[in-house]
């Protein structure tokens, strides 16, 4: 059996997997009947529907011819990794991570880290340029979010402010 549309084939699998997972999860709650719907009723219904739909999409992807096979194409691993990593590191630095006893480093440190990590996702990386960008972003964010909008953020590292 050939896969005629790669994109549809894998979307179908994704829908099936998620549908089954939700439907299975729903059966662990009280399902009830139409007149007395339990918390499991609606998710079970939707999950089953989604799984069936996913099966149909997968089946179609193996039968219906498409131009060029509708290939998924190369994954952009580099941007994917650096963007998500930048986001995670920002979160860790902003709030600290009690489980490894890392104190909160605050917004400013977080911004520098985020900019430097995220900038790796692009095609070129110039240290000086990124440094300037990070500084500009830090100043703008401080003025906009802390001074102007008065949002509650840890701005500086916890060991400085105490």
């Amino acid at each position, binding site marked *: 059996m050939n896969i005629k549309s790669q994109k549809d084939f894998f979307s179908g699998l994704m829908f099936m997997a998620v549908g089954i997972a939700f439907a299975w999860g729903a059966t662990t709650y009280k399902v009830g009947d139409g007149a007395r719907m339990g918390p499991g009723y609606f998710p079970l219904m939707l999950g089953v529907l989604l799984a069936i739909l996913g099966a149909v999409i997968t089946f179609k992807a193996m039968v219906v011819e498409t131009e060029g096979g509708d290939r998924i194409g190369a994954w952009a691993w580099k941007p994917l990794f650096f963007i998500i990593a930048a986001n995670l590191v920002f979160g860790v630095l902003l709030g600290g991570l009690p489980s490894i006893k890392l104190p909160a480093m605050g917004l400013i440190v977080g911004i520098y880290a*985020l900019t430097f990590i995220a900038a790796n996702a692009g095609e070129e990386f110039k240290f000086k340029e990124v440094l300037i960008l990070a500084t500009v972003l830090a100043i703008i964010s401080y003025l906009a979010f802390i001074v102007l909008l008065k949002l509650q953020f840890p701005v500086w590292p916890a060991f400085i402010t105490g």
Partner: protein
Amino acid sequence: MDLISNLSLGFGVAFTPINLMYAFIGCLLGTLIGVLPGIGPLATIAMLLPATYALPPVSALIMLAGIYYGAQYGGSTTAILVNLPGESSSVVTVIDGYQMARQGRAGPALAAAGLGSFFAGCVGTLVLAAFAVPLTEVAFKFGPAEYFSLMVLGLVGAVVLASGSLLKAVGMILLGLLVGLVGTDVNSGVARFSFDIPELTDGIGFIVIAMGVFGYGEIISNLGKHESEREVFTANVTGLMPSKEDFKRMVPAVLRGTALGAALGILPGGGAVMSAFAAYTIEKKTKLHPGEVPFGKGNIRGVAAPEAANNAGSQTSFIPLLTLGIPPNAVMALMVGAMTIHNIQPGPQVMTSNPELFWGLIASMWIGNAMLVILNLPLIGIWIKLLTVPYRWLFPAIVLFCAIGVYSTNNNTWDIWMVAIFGVIGYLFIKLGAEPAPLLLGFILGPMMEENLRRALLLSRGDWSVFVTRGLSASLLAVAALLLVVVLLPSIKKKREEAFVED
């Protein structure tokens, strides 16, 4: 005249200096972010939402409406100059607008888009004001069965409009509905699908999904392409004013676009995208005047009509939101979330219990449109400068503002972890060619649908026929079925595929 007294109440609220200022800031920020290539109104609104937290509800909503319109205007500027639609509703603008820019007529194209949108916005506001009262009265007749059927209709509408595979769009909606159910069930108090994580018992935040999927997902996918694929026309924007000839062609196109957009926007599932596509199709059907440039080669009508239609449509799509509390499309779904943050439950009761807010918002939409013409046309030079900023400076800034935005919704790093997960999921959706907009709509409607289904079946003692024996509910479902049949008709199906291929 009720309409006039209502509108004057609204303008009284909106014309206070402080609210005018917020409308202005909203428009400015909206345009600023919306102009950036690859960021549509969804990501823009999600990113700028924290900026409204500290404001009183009326001002916050006025600012949000400004952000929404600004993002749309900014999107059309990008479409014309960069050949990169920031959002689906300017997909058709790209076709002729970009050609005009290549011929050195970017100025008239921008002016046509701006003036056409302004006119359409004015008409849309009037339609909104006129329809709001009678529709609200209808809304009070709605029982749970009607609400459920209406949401089905809205979701079917969203499926019909999604570009690409219908089946996958249905899948995305179901997925959205399911994700919307995560968290504590309001009736039984059972925490569903929360894996005993306390943060998950409150459900997943809609901002987290919007930013992860539409912000991070898009950025990752954009970075996967090479920079040379983007070409910006910035140097040759000279002479904004369209010629007399241009005006003669533009005016009827704008009128047609406005009428179409205003009508389609009211339909659940309708709004900006469908309006723009329909308007462009109609313009293409009309006969070319002697000496007129053909469509697809830089015809000004191909810019004016869809831009007018999408603005009229986005204006009137507030009607189902404000009168019935049901978001007709993904952007409006985001507005529901925004309103809930400010403790306003959208629905028919808003108009009666909070008339200042309701009419003030409507009036401020008109003011916002006027401000945008003022902001956009003379200041176009500034926006063009923004387009020349290299993407490698922009994307870290966007990532940062998304991260700050999600953190500030709850002051909790949990949301930052979640947005990372949804960023990966969003990129997966893009790679699999599954359009994420229906997901967000399903996400917002999920809990509402369950609640109304539960109530309807409770009242009917488990009898499903209640949805077809009640007149209003039956006719809503009939319209939904009709819509489905229409798209599935072979001739229309082919046309629909053609229309979406042009992006």
